[in-house]
C-alpha cells in the first residue's frame, strides 16, 4: 500500500465494514467485535499516517486524485493538510470510543446499529480529507443519513421531533451551500479545492457560511442543538458535538477563509459578533441548564463560538488556537457525554435535581469527571487553556473587546462546569442515586480513559498541535498563499 492510499482506506474501510455487517448474518457479539476491531484498525492506520506526516512541508499530503465527473471537472480528490490530519485523528479516536460504548451497553438491532456507526465514521473522515467541493458536499450530507437513523431509532422519547429539526435545519444550510458550490464551481471552471482560485462574491460567502454556521452551530442557528443532544443516545451525542460539529468550523477554515478572503474580512465583524454571541449566550444557557447533557450541549455551542472567533480573528495565533481548541474540545465533549451516558445508565436521569452525591463510593467516576471538568474550564496548564489563550491573544490583536468578551466566556465556563461537577458528584445525594449504582466498570474505563489520557497529553504538550497544524507555523501564509 502506498502512503497516499491510506487516506482512501480511512474513508472506505469503515464503509466496507458497514456493508459486511449488514450482509453477513453475524451474532450480536460478533457484530460488535467486528465493528470495534474495524474502528481500532482505523486508529492504527491514522497513527501510521501521523508518523509519516511531514509537518514542515506545505501543501497537501497523502493525496489521491481521480476524475469523477469529467465534463464538470469534478474529481475524487482526497488528501490531508496538517490540521485535517488532527481532525481525522479526533474522528477515528472518538468513533472508536463511541462504537465501543455502543457495544458495552448492548444496543438493540446490533447489525443496523454498528453498520450505521461505521458508515458515519467513513463519512466524517471523508469530510475532513475531501479536496473537491462536490465530494466534500457528498460526505457532509452523508454524515446526516446515519445520524438521522441513529437518533431516530435508538434515541430518547422525543427523538422524532429531534431528528426532524436536526435534518431540516442542517439540510436548509447545506442545500444553500449546494447552490453556492454549483455557482462557484461552474464560474471558476473547477470544483477542486486546491486548484480553484479565491472568489470575491459575498453571496457565495454567505451560502457557504450559512451551512457551517448551522453545523457548528453559531448563535441564531442553534435551534436544532438542545433537542438532538438530549434525545440522541449518549455516544451519538458525543460524536455529534465532539466530531460532527467540528465539520462546521473545519469548513470555515478550509473553504470560507481560504476561498473567500475578501468577503471574510468584509463580514469579519458580523461573524465575530455571532461567535461572541454563541460564546456568551451558550455559556449562560449552559449555566441555566437543568441536566448533565444540557450543560455539555450548550457549552459545545459556546466553544464553537470561541473557535469561530479564533478563525475569524485572522491572526496566526487565532488559527493555531482554533485548531488546538477543535481537537481539545472534541475530546472533552466526547468524554463528558460518555460520562453522562454512564451516569444516566445508573440513575435513569441526568437532571441535577435528582442527582448529587455520586462521588461517595465511586472514585473512578469522580476522578474522571473532575479531570475532564477541570480541563474543560480551562485551568492554566490544560489543553483547553492553551487553546483559549491562543484564541484570545489572536482576538486581542484584532481589538481588545473581542478578547474581553472571550474572557467572560471563560469565567462563565468555570461557573457552569463547577455547577455540573457539584450537581452530579457533590451536593446532597439525589433521590435517583441508589447505593446499588456502581462505579464505572472496567469496560467503561477502557473507553473513557484513553480520551482523557489524550487530553492530558495535549495539556502537557499543546504545541504538539498548535505548532504542527500549518506548515512552518505561519497559518496566514498557509491559508492565503500556500494552498490559496
Amino acid at each position, binding site marked *: 500500500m502506498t502512503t497516499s492510499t491510506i487516506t482512501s482506506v480511512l474513508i472506505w474501510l469503515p464503509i466496507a465494514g458497514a456493508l459486511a455487517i*449488514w450482509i453477513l448474518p453475524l451474532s450480536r457479539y460478533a457484530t460488535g467485535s467486528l465493528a470495534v476491531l474495524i474502528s481500532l484498525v482505523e486508529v492504527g492506520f491514522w497513527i501510521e499516517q501521523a508518523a509519516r506526516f511531514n509537518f514542515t512541508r506545505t501543501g497537501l499530503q497523502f493525496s489521491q486524485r481521480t*476524475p*469523477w*465527473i*469529467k*465534463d*464538470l471537472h469534478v474529481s475524487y480528490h482526497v488528501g490531508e493538510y496538517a490540521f485535517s490530519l488532527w481532525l481525522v485523528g479526533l474522528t477515528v479516536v472518538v468513533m472508536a470510543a463511541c462504537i465501543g460504548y455502543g457495544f458495552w451497553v448492548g444496543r438493540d*438491532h446490533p447489525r443496523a446499529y454498528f453498520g450505521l456507526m461505521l458508515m458515519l465514521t467513513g463519512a466524517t473522515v471523508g469530510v475532513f480529507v475531501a479536496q473537491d467541493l*462536490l465530494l466534500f*458536499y*457528498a*460526505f457532509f*450530507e*452523508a454524515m*446526516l*443519513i446515519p445520524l*438521522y*437513523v441513529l437518533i*431516530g*431509532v435508538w434515541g430518547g422519547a422525543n*427523538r*422524532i421531533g429531534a*431528528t*426532524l429539526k436536526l*435534518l*431540516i435545519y442542517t*439540510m*436548509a444550510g447545506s*442545500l*444553500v451551500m*449546494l*447552490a453556492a458550490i*454549483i*455557482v462557484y*464551481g*461552474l464560474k471558476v471552471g473547477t470544483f477542486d479545492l486546491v486548484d480553484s482560485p479565491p472568489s470575491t462574491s459575498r453571496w457565495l460567502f454567505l451560502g457557504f457560511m450559512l451551512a457551517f454556521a448551522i453545523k457548528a452551530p453559531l448563535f441564531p442557528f442553534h435551534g436544532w442543538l438542545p433537542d438532538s443532544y438530549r434525545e440522541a443516545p449518549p455516544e451519538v451525542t458525543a460524536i455529534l458535538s465532539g466530531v460532527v460539529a467540528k465539520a462546521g468550523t473545519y469548513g470555515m477554515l478550509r473553504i470560507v477563509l481560504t476561498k473567500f478572503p475578501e468577503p471574510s474580512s468584509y463580514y469579519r465583524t458580523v461573524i465575530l459578533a455571532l461567535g461572541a454571541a454563541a460564546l456568551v449566550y451558550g455559556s449562560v444557557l449552559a449555566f441555566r441548564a437543568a441536566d448533565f447533557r444540557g450543560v455539555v450541549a450548550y457549552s459545545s455551542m459556546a466553544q464553537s463560538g470561541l473557535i469561530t472567533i479564533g478563525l475569524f480573528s485572522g491572526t496566526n495565533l487565532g488559527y493555531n488556537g482554533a485548531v488546538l481548541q477543535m481537537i481539545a474540545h472534541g475530546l472533552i465533549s466526547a468524554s463528558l457525554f460518555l460520562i453522562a451516558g454512564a451516569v444516566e445508565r445508573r440513575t435513569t436521569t441526568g437532571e441535577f435535581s435528582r442527582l448529587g452525591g455520586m462521588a461517595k463510593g465511586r472514585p473512578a467516576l469522580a476522578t474522571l469527571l473532575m479531570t475532564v471538568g477541570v480541563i474543560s474550564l480551562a485551568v492554566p496548564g490544560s489543553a483547553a487553556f492553551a487553546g483559549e489563550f491562543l484564541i484570545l491573544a489572536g482576538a486581542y490583536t484584532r481589538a481588545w473587546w473581542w478578547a474581553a468578551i472571550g474572557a467572560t466566556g471563560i469565567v462563565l465556563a468555570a461557573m457552569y462546569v463547577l455547577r455540573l461537577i457539584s450537581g452530579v458528584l457533590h451536593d446532597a445525594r439525589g433521590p435517583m442515586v441508589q447505593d446499588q449504582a456502581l462505579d464505572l466498570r472496567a469496560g467503561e474505563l477502557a473507553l473513557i480513559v484513553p480520551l482523557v489520557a489524550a487530553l492530558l497529553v495535549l495539556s502537557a504538550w499543546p504545541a504538539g498541535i498548535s505548532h504542527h497544524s500549518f506548515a512552518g507555523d505561519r497559518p496566514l501564509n498557509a491559508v492565503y498563499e500556500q494552498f490559496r
Partner: protein
Amino acid sequence: MIHTPHVDWFAISTVLVLLGASFIALLGAVLVPAALRRTFAVTVAALGSLGGIVTSVWLYVDSANGHRVIADSFYRDRWTALTQVILCATTLATVLVGADRVREHESEFFALLLASAAGMTFFVGSANLMVMFLSLEWFSIALYVLCAIDYDLEGSLEAGLKYLVVGSFGSAALLFGSALVYGATNRIGFAEIAQQVGVHGLSGDLLLVLGLAMILAGLAFKSSAAPFHMWTPDVYQGAPTTVTAFMSSATKVAAFALTFRILRTAFPQEAHLWTWALAGIAVASLVIGNLAALVQTDVKRLLAYSSISHAGFILIGLSTGTALGGRALMYYLVPYSAMAFGSFAIVAARERELGKPVTLENLAGFGWERPFLGVAMWFFMFGFAGLPLGGGFIGKFYVLSAAYDHGWTWLVIVGVLATLVSLYYYLGVVRAIYMRGPQLAVATGGSPPRETLLHIAVGAALVVSVGSLVAVGPLITLARHAASALPF
C-alpha cells in the same frame, strides 16, 4: 403498385423482439394449459425484455453515426438506443415483480406489458409527427387496459377509465398540435419542420407556436408534469402496483426522451419560447408535487406526487435545451427510473403482505420485519431526496448545474428549495418503516411471502441507483454520446 421503402430491420429490432414476445405470450392464453400459463408467460416476457436489452445495447454500439431509416420515419441513433436500454430494463424488472403477483389473465397481462414496452421503444425513435402520434397511442392503449386489468381491485377500473379519458385528451391535444404544425410548415418530419421554419422564416408564426404549445401539453400529460398531472395520483393509486411501478419509470423515460428530441430537432428556432415554457412547467411541477406530497398518507399517492416533483427536476435539465441539459436529462433518468420502480415494487410487497392499501401508518415496523426491503426503501427515499445514497444526488447536481450554465440561477434556487421541502415527506417514509413500533392490529401471523423474483428486481434497482453514483463517469460518457446524436 405501392412503392415500399427500404426497411432497416436491425434499427427496429428492439421493437420487433418485444412485439414478437408479446404475440407469443398472448398465444399462450389459447395454446398453453392453464397450469403452465403463468410460467410460460413470465418466461416469454422475461426473455423478450432481455432480448430487447441485448438488441438495444447492440444498436447503441453500432449506431455511432445517427441517421434516419425507413423512409426517414425512425431514428437509428444512440439517443434512441440508450433510452431503449432503460425501457427494456424497466420492463424486465416489471416482469419479475409481476411474476408472483398477477393472479389471473397472466398471458394477457404480460402480452400487454410487452406491447406497451414495444410501443415506447418505437415512440422514442420516432422521426415524424405521424409515427410519434401512432406509437404514443400504441403504448397508451396498452397501458389503459393494464391499469384496469385487475377489475376486482377497488379503484383499478376507475384508474383505467380516468387514465383513458385524461390520456385521450392529452393525445387529442398532441394530434391537434401536430396538425397545426403541419399546417404551418407543410411537413411532418422533425428535421424538415425545422428546415422549413428556417427557409421560410416561419419562426414566431402563430399557427406554429400554437401547434408547439399543444404538442408540449400532450407530452406533458404523459410525463405527468404539472399542470397536466391531475390524473397521476388517482391512476397511480388505483392501478395494480406492478403497473404503477412500470408507468412511473418507463412512461416518463419515454416521454422525456422524446420531448427533448422533438424540441431540439423540430423547433430549435423557437427555443426562446419553449425553454421558458418548460421552466414554467418545471416550477409548477416542483411546487405542486412537493406541496401535495407533504399531506399524503397513502404511500402510493405520496410516491405519485413525488414523481410529479421529479418530473419538475428532469424538466429543469430539459428546459435549458443545451447539450449539458441533455446529458443531465439522460443521466437523471437512470437512477430516477431505478428508484421509482424499486420503491413501488416495495410497496407492492407490503401490499400483498397486508392485503390492503399501504399507508404511512401500516408501514410501521416494516424495516425490521423485512430487512432487505427496508434498507432498499431507505436508500430510495434518501436517494429521491438528493442525499448522497445514490445517483439521485448527482442527478440533481447535474440538472442544477445545467440550469446555472444556462444562466438561470433562479431555477437553481427553486430546485434547492424544492429539495428542502421534499425532505420532509421522504423522511416521513423512513420514519414510518424504522422509527415506529410494529402495530399489532396489522400483524396477520406467519412469515411474509418469499417473493424471490421481487427481491431480485428490487436488488437490481438498488444496484443501479447506488451504482450510478459510483460509475458517474461511464454513465455520463454514455449520455454524452447519446446526446451528441441530437442537433445542437
